[in-house]
């Protein structure tokens, strides 16, 4: 197996995978069928990394899994290619609006195990799709999914992920998206579960007018570590990218956002925007933000900003003075803080699911 990345690599400076290398992960056991939310949407269900037809419902645009060859500089994607034996392959032909599909991963086992799902999403010209991904589980496991996305001209993919993995899990997701002219990739990840988790997105804007929104909300407590890392490559003129990352960190949780924007020579009229805001709910919580701009064009509008703060006492008092109990007032302010990151989540079921997941977070110990 390809070696895990170490902190010596710049891209892994803030996320240490050593706890992972100390565990010997076995092949996944047969997964138990969980209670699944019935959202009335077509769904593809993977139990411990294996497609389960009985729990899934037909989706006209899903195909069978085919193994992949990979020669990647990304160690985790490389490991995935070596190990992957299942995943969703979605293909929406040109001009078709395929609606919304649920992609569910559920993991349970008594001994630590690893699974490496390999998803592929291809949208033809002008095609549309919303993928709502939910990852849950119990126990110790390592989930190492890779999702490769290809969007032809004018295609639009909305990709919403709700990461509610086991609190003892390692969840390391790699997403690569290639976005052609006037196509758009709208991404939102909610990082709620996992002992150690990372979402790493590489988005290449390859044709004029392509758009990528890569947003995230990280809600972490205890000793959780969550990392949202993005690399946006502006390879054509007139493309726009936006990243709004909101992290709410309690206890001694640690949040990471690394955002890199690369603007190639000739990618004029690039519009890049990046904002990382963290709310630290306890003195032991920590946020690391690393923006990186690498610009080789001259007519470019790129900005980034980062803030770290606590809940505003004045706002809290204002709410309480209106009779709202302290805990509820805090929850309201935290929810308000997240609002801007939730912008890509317009789809009704996705909203409902996400609101429930956020709500659930307050009541966690």
């Amino acid at each position, binding site marked *: 197996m390809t070696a895990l990345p170490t902190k010596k690599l710049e891209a892994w400076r803030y996320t240490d995978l050593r706890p992972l290398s100390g565990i010997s992960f076995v092949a996944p056991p047969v997964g138990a069928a969980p209670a699944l939310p019935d959202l009335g949407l077509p769904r593809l269900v993977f139990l411990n990394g294996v497609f389960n037809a009985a729990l899934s419902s037909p989706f006209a645009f899903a195909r069978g899994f085919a193994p992949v060859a990979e020669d990647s500089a990304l160690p985790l994607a490389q490991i995935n290619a070596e190990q992957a034996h299942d995943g969703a392959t979605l293909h929406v032909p040109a001009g078709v609006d395929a609606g919304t599909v649920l992609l569910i991963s559920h993991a349970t086992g008594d001994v630590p195990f690893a699974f490496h799902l390999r998803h592929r999403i291809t949208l033809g010209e002008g095609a549309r799709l919303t993928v709502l991904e939910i990852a849950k589980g119990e126990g110790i496991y390592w989930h190492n999914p890779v999702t490769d996305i290809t969007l032809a001209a004018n295609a639009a993919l909305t990709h919403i992920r709700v990461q509610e993995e086991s609190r003892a899990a390692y969840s390391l997701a790699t997403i690569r998206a290639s976005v052609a002219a006037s196509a758009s990739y709208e991404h939102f990840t909610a990082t709620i579960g996992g002992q150690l988790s990372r979402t790493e997105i590489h988005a290449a804007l390859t044709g004029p007018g392509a758009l990528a929104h890569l947003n995230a909300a990280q809600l972490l407590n205890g000793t959780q570590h969550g990392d949202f890392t993005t690399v946006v490559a502006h390879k054509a003129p007139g493309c726009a990218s936006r990243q709004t990352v909101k992290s709410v960190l309690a206890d001694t949780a640690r949040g990471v956002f690394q955002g890199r924007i690369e603007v190639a020579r000739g990618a004029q009229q690039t519009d890049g925007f990046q904002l990382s805001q963290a709310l630290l709910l306890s003195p032991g919580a920590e946020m690391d933000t690393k923006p990186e701009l690498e610009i080789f064009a001259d007519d470019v509008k790129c900005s980034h900003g980062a803030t770290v703060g606590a809940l505003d*006492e*004045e*706002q809290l*008092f*204002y*709410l*309480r*003075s*209106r*009779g*709202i*109990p*302290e805990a*509820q*007032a805090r929850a*309201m*302010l935290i*929810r*308000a*803080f*997240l*609002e*801007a990151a939730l912008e890509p989540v317009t789809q009704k079921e996705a909203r409902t699911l996400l609101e429930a997941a956020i709500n659930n977070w307050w009541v966690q110990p």
Partner: protein
Amino acid sequence: MLEIKNLHARIGEKEILRGVNLTVPDGEIHAIMGPNGAGKSTLSYVLSGRDGYEVTEGEVIYNGQNILDLPPEDRAAAGIFLAFQYPVELPGVGNANFLRTALNAVRRKRGQEELDAVAFLKLARAAVKSLHMKEDFLKRNVNVGFSGGEKKRNEMLQMALLKPGLAILDETDSGLDIDALKIVAEGVNALRAPDFSALVITHYQRLLDHIVPDVVHVLAAGRIVRSGPKELALELEARGYAGLEAA
């Protein structure tokens, strides 16, 4: 009835309230005037339970209950409402959601039934209308991008919905145009009832033409230095506060 007895309060090392004595019987409206920095806003914050103020002496009894140990939300439920001198902006919090959450929190604590979205909206729309506010105020984020006068009206909207027993208006008139002033006064006068009382903090006699106080107090350097009938406001307007602080 509100009874403030020998109230001393400090922020850090600085004593701001230095023995305030003040009684507001039920059904009465009292005005508090006084120079900048006298402690008027401090008094209103101490009454509503804001953190950061240390009460070193004295007590505050509202309807027979010592309220100084209550958290702000319980004071609100008990009927105390502060209209802020500087209303706070809440980006990301919709005004309607805020109002409904507050109203239901207070109703719950007062043993009343909570309102569903439909019943609430009906109530809120009526209140918005009576304050001559645009209906889109309910849809906007709380106070975000509101003009100074609009923020003050939004305070009055909250007051109208929460129906307090004791309203403390901290310079609600400043920043209001003449028409808005009348609307605010109407809002306060509409609450007038045998079990409603108000403390109206203001720098200007003009508000008191519309909300006629039963008593006018002068707060200077952390103490009530003079109290008198509504004509006292006219006198202050003419002569200023000179000489009062020593009294």
